[in-house]
């Protein structure tokens, strides 16, 4: 039996450097918020940064909005413990972006104003569609927020030694401050700062790893195989059932194109061309980042060792921080810790803003007030919604303490793939789509996803500890996404809506030329 050495790490007992980076980031982002607050006086500025963001800035912000701590620490950890299998996630998190570019970004930008529901309601009856879209948005955003909050609490506790509740409260307070005062402009720049920090941190760490292997990834992989066996280079246990992999793949690929906080970013640029080019930048950055996490994972496996990584955190989440400490000392660990914190904040700020937009723009202004709310009231409601959502997120984060919530990100993607994405595709590209059909798609897609996940092994076996589950798949997208599409198709065909069909030509024209065409 091999006795594993107690890990030598200063994790959880933050150094002065770690604290300095942490406060430097907070001070910088709050400074940005102060600057942005003076430029956030209208609803267009609050929700869409006054359409003033350039394509390149938006591309970086999209990456900052999307790359979560789960993908940075989680994938590196997964690779460090199981090798190749982590690559399934690295690729899965990226392949949705080309789909966003080809199918969604440009028509969405040309048709809508602040939320993806704006684009879906064109030519359909506003109120029912907005209510259904708000349900889809809030379901996605809430699940995603819970996963981020619980992750944040645990991570910051590990990195900085703060109590779980205090960590969740700090994250909640910072995110509310960004969004409440600085709106989309502050959120965008927090995401840009985070993306630059995350990318440079990961690149520096990957470089330090590769310097030990003559800058050759193949030598690194060969060393891993020599120490831990050839299986680390080939598919392992993660994909025991083929259909599970395909179902998760569908959720990741098509869910990306239905995430409300991502879609909302396309309204921050001046036109459809900028929206298009921004996805090109985002795809480049995110792809490069996931290639690097793979290097980090193998680096941690070889240099830190799986036993040490597991001893600190059973899930492997501390693989990248431990690697940073080994290669760059306490200072670098402090930097990576601050980067992980920044990563979480940028994602939850984007989520909160899109949830607040669904509550205020979709539900309050356009459903309750039928579009008749003056600018002051709209802004006040948007800020109130931000505050409410932020507080709810903190409370949920504390409520779910210690729960296994990792599946909730996959679930949020599955809802986005089964409800939001089909609704966007059907309403923007199919003449025959009707109000009832689109509402059905969103409610069935969202409802079926939630029902199936409850009946799945993910909840029944992993969480409730039952022997078996009624529904076989761990992620339901393989069934729920076709259900979302089919239900909308059938309902639309059964009861056609002549007015909606007649207005389709005008929609296509506007999707091509933009709002200026009206």
């Amino acid at each position, binding site marked *: 039996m091999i006795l594993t050495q107690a890990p030598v790490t200063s994790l959880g007992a933050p150094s002065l450097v770690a604290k300095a980076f942490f406060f430097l980031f907070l001070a910088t982002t709050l400074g940005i918020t102060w600057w942005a607050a003076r430029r956030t006086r209208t609803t267009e500025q609050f929700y869409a940064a006054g359409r003033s963001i350039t394509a390149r800035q938006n591309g970086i912000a999209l990456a900052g909005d999307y790359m979560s701590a789960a993908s940075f620490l989680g994938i590196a950890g997964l690779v460090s413990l199981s090798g*190749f299998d982590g*690559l*399934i996630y*690295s*690729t*899965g998190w*990226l*392949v949705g*972006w*080309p*789909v966003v*570019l*080809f*199918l969604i970004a440009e028509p969405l930008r040309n048709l809508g104003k602040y939320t993806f529901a704006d684009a879906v309601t064109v030519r359909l009856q506003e109120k029912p569609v907005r209510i259904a879209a708000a349900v889809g948005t809030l379901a996605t955003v809430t699940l995603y927020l819970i996963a981020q909050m619980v992750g944040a609490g645990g991570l910051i506790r590990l990195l900085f030694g703060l109590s779980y509740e205090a960590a969740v409260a700090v994250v909640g307070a910072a995110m509310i401050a960004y969004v409440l005062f600085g709106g989309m402009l502050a959120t965008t720049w927090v995401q840009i700062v985070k993306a630059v920090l995350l990318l440079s941190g990961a690149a520096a760490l990957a470089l330090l790893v590769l310097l030990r292997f003559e800058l050759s*990834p*193949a*030598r*690194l*992989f*060969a*060393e891993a*195989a020599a120490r831990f066996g*050839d*299986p680390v*280079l*080939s*598919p392992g246990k993660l*994909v025991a059932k*083929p259909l599970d*992999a*395909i179902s998760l*793949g569908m959720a990741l*690929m098509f869910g990306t194109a239905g995430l409300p906080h991502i879609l909302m970013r396309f309204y921050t640029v001046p036109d459809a*061309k900028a929206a*298009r*080019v921004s*996805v*090109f930048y985002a*795809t*480049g950055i995110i*792809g490069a980042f*996931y*290639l690097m996490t*793979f290097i980090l994972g193998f680096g941690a496996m070889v240099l830190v060792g799986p036993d040490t990584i597991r001893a600190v955190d059973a899930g492997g989440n501390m693989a990248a921080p431990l690697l940073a400490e080994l290669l760059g000392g306490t200072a670098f660990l402090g930097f990576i810790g601050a980067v992980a914190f920044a990563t979480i904040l940028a994602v939850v700020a984007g989520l909160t803003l899109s949830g607040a937009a669904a509550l205020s723009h979709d539900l309050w202004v356009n459903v309750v007030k039928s579009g008749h709310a003056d600018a002051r009231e709209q802004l006040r409601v948007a800020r109130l919604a931000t505050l409410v959502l932020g507080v709810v997120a903190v409370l949920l984060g504390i409520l779910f303490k210690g729960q296994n919530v990792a599946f909730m990100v996959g679930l949020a993607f599955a809802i986005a793939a089964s409800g939001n994405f089909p609704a966007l595709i059907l309403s923007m*590209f199919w003449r025959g789509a009707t109000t009832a059909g689109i509402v059905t798609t969103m409610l069935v897609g969202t409802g079926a996803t939630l029902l199936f996940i409850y009946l799945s092994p993910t909840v029944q076996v992993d969480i409730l500890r039952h022997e078996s589950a009624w529904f076989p798949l761990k992620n339901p997208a393989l069934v729920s996404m076709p259900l979302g599409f089919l239900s909308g198709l059938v309902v639309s065909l059964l009861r056609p809506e002549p007015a909606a069909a007649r207005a389709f030509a005008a929609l*296509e*024209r506007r*999707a*091509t*030329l933009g709002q*200026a*065409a009206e």
Partner: protein
Amino acid sequence: MAAEHEAELRALAGARRRLALLLTAAMVLIYFGFLGLIAWQKPLLGRLVVPGLSLGILLGALVIVSCWILTWIYVRWANTRYDPEIERLRGHL
């Protein structure tokens, strides 16, 4: 005259849609092809191309590279072919 330009606009929108669908189909094939290999051809992916580099790792990296290439193809087409045409038609409509 206007009707002619409207028809041109529809044809242009159709061309964009066809390219978008073609590239989406390519992306779906590439990714689910990769997942299919992972699910059903595990030993094949474990084979080494050069020492240390298994076919699986190489293909995974190529999936990421293919995302870059496909988005580049689309953006290049849209920026150099599609946009000027749209601008020209916008002037007429």
